[in-house]
């Protein structure tokens, strides 16, 4: 009897799966192997997404907003993403067809007049059908409201929690009522009302906008506002929910003193798993997870934490998760963006030493 290789090469066509293939399938390198690339050659209209970047990347909320625009846009509508602040990441999976980056308008600086003038110039030149912005506290919520107030002929909705091609909805009267209306021109989206996962990739071409460069040059007049600088509260003083960098200890951490000096060296807030808290190593208010706190740090360093679902629930909004664990099959490894397999104590000690050296060399270079 002859066995047929069940994994023999095949071709997928519109009619379905074709087993008879004459040549071996060409292996084309695409950035997203399972996703078809969506290209919009002769676009007639635009939808515009405006968002600030953070450290050169877009946060989940901003990505959701771009995805929202991409889902809504039809084959003849281009999604133009106007990114305020530097952008170092690739946005092909986010849903943008075209990108304009204005690095001088990053969220760390307070320049509402210049920002409003720049985005108004872009809006003027592309005449978008809809404008989407994340309704957040890093500047987009503020800028969006300034935009709405300056263009009172445009219909607008803020804190939108639900929407599709025909309607938007938000909570009103202190969250006691849900109200619906037709899709307005300016939409400020609340977080997590869109699934940022898209089944297609987009071209995400960068284009330079000359319009905006001109306005930024003309807008150097002294304004009513004066920025006195952004400051960061010491990690030990801020609430865990608000912390940006958390080092978290689990059952795999034996020596709390080492752990605490690592947190100090990294200027990070301290968190812990339930087991570590139950052991009396940390106060109850440090517990992260389903029965503890939900955190949304940019960096979460999980040391000796297995990653039980109850714990992972508490860190679902963390951007970069790094794990140190002796067990490569722990569930935390699947969640983490980077896992280092090894003994917690040893690696923590080495990290502390390396950080001390790095800080010293930085001081010397500066001096």
């Amino acid at each position, binding site marked *: 009897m002859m066995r047929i290789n069940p994994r023999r090469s095949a071709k997928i066509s519109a009619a*379905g*799966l074709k087993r008879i293939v004459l040549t071996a399938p060409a292996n084309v390198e695409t950035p997203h192997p*399972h996703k078809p690339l969506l290209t919009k050659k002769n676009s007639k209209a635009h939808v515009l997404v405006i968002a600030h970047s953070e450290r050169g*990347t877009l946060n989940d909320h901003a990505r959701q907003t771009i*995805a929202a625009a*991409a*889902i809504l846009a039809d084959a003849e509508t281009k999604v133009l993403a106007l990114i305020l602040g530097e952008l170092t990441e690739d946005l092909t999976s986010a849903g943008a067809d075209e990108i304009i980056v204005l690095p001088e308008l990053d969220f760390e600086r*307070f320049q509402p007049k210049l920002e409003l003038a720049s985005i108004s110039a872009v809006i003027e030149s592309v005449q978008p059908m809809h404008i989407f912005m994340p309704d*957040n*506290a*890093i500047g987009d919520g*503020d800028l969006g*409201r*300034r935009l*709405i107030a300056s263009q*009172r002929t445009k219909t*607008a909705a803020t*804190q939108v*929690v639900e929407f599709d091609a025909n309607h938007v909805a938000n*909570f*009103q*009267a*202190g*969250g*006691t*009522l849900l*109200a619906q209306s*037709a899709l307005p021109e300016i939409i400020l989206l609340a977080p997590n009302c*869109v*699934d940022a*996962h898209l089944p*297609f990739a987009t071209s995400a071409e960068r284009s330079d906008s000359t319009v905006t460069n001109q306005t930024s040059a003309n807008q150097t007049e002294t304004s*009513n*506002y*004066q*920025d*006195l*600088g*952004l*400051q*960061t509260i010491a990690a030990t003083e801020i609430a865990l929910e*608000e912390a940006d*960098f958390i080092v978290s200890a689990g059952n795999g951490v034996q020596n709390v003193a080492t752990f605490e000096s690592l947190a100090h060296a990294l200027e990070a807030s301290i968190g812990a798993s339930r087991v570590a808290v139950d052991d009396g190593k940390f106060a109850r208010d440090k517990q992260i997870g389903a029965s503890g706190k939900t955190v949304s740090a940019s*960096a979460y360093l999980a040391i000796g934490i297995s990653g039980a679902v109850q714990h992972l629930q508490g860190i679902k909004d963390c951007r*970069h998760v790094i794990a140190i664990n002796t067990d490569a099959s722990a569930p935390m490894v699947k*969640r*983490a*963006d*980077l*896992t*280092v397999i*090894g*003994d917690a104590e040893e690696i923590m*000690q*080495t*990290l502390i030493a*390396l*950080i001390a050296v*790095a800080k010293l060399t*930085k001081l010397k270079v500066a001096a």
Partner: protein
Amino acid sequence: MIIKRIAVLISAGRHPTSGQPRHCRNDSLALTMAVDLANSHSTELDVIHAGNPENPALANYLALGADEIKVITAEPIIENLAANLKDVDLILTGSRAENGQDSGLLPYLLAVKLNIPIVANALEIKQMDDKLEVLQFFPKGKRRRVAVKLPAIIAIHPLAFVELHYAYAREQQGKIVVLDSRSTVNNTVAENNLQWQIQPKMRKPNKLKAPENLTGHGRLLSAITSENKGGTVVNEGNSVEKAQVILSYLREHQLINF
């Protein structure tokens, strides 16, 4: 410049579950800040509400420190408020109302109408000559200091460092006056207006998801291959190399600055 007149705008709030009228916490913070500022600079303070003078929520504000509440009943709200705020040096508001549309737009619309600057998310305010220094809230433990030229509108953040003091005696002493109810403005500009329809029943909002029309093969593929990146796993090397990997990851993503 000395601040001669301060105005604070208050809205009628609602209890989130019972729907009972009550003060709106954000506005009470603004009120308390305004009262403190007015007392320390001995300036005139106007507490203004646009809406129904009969609203029982207003009594809460009397108890929280307002001696007198001026009520503007004329519509449109923004224009009539602006007409009453022409010679005010500092206007304080909460960041979002708890009644009506809760859009958080009012201070911005008012700022455009009066042509004065606005700073939102204020935690602390301090007067410095002809400027006001504002400490602004940012997520992730960040704060920003901004100086703004007066007159200005400041919207107070819910986390502002203010303690509310409720006194029944003040509620009894305070009074509510209705300002001339005829509208002083008669323009009808478009106002970002949308027709909102209140849903009869409260429900969970639906999340928008991209439609995926896959072939049977595609669905099978997506079921068996997870797109989960799963991250990099570093197994090799001694502890120095491993620690170095962590540090370079942190540096690469600008999470540390050394």
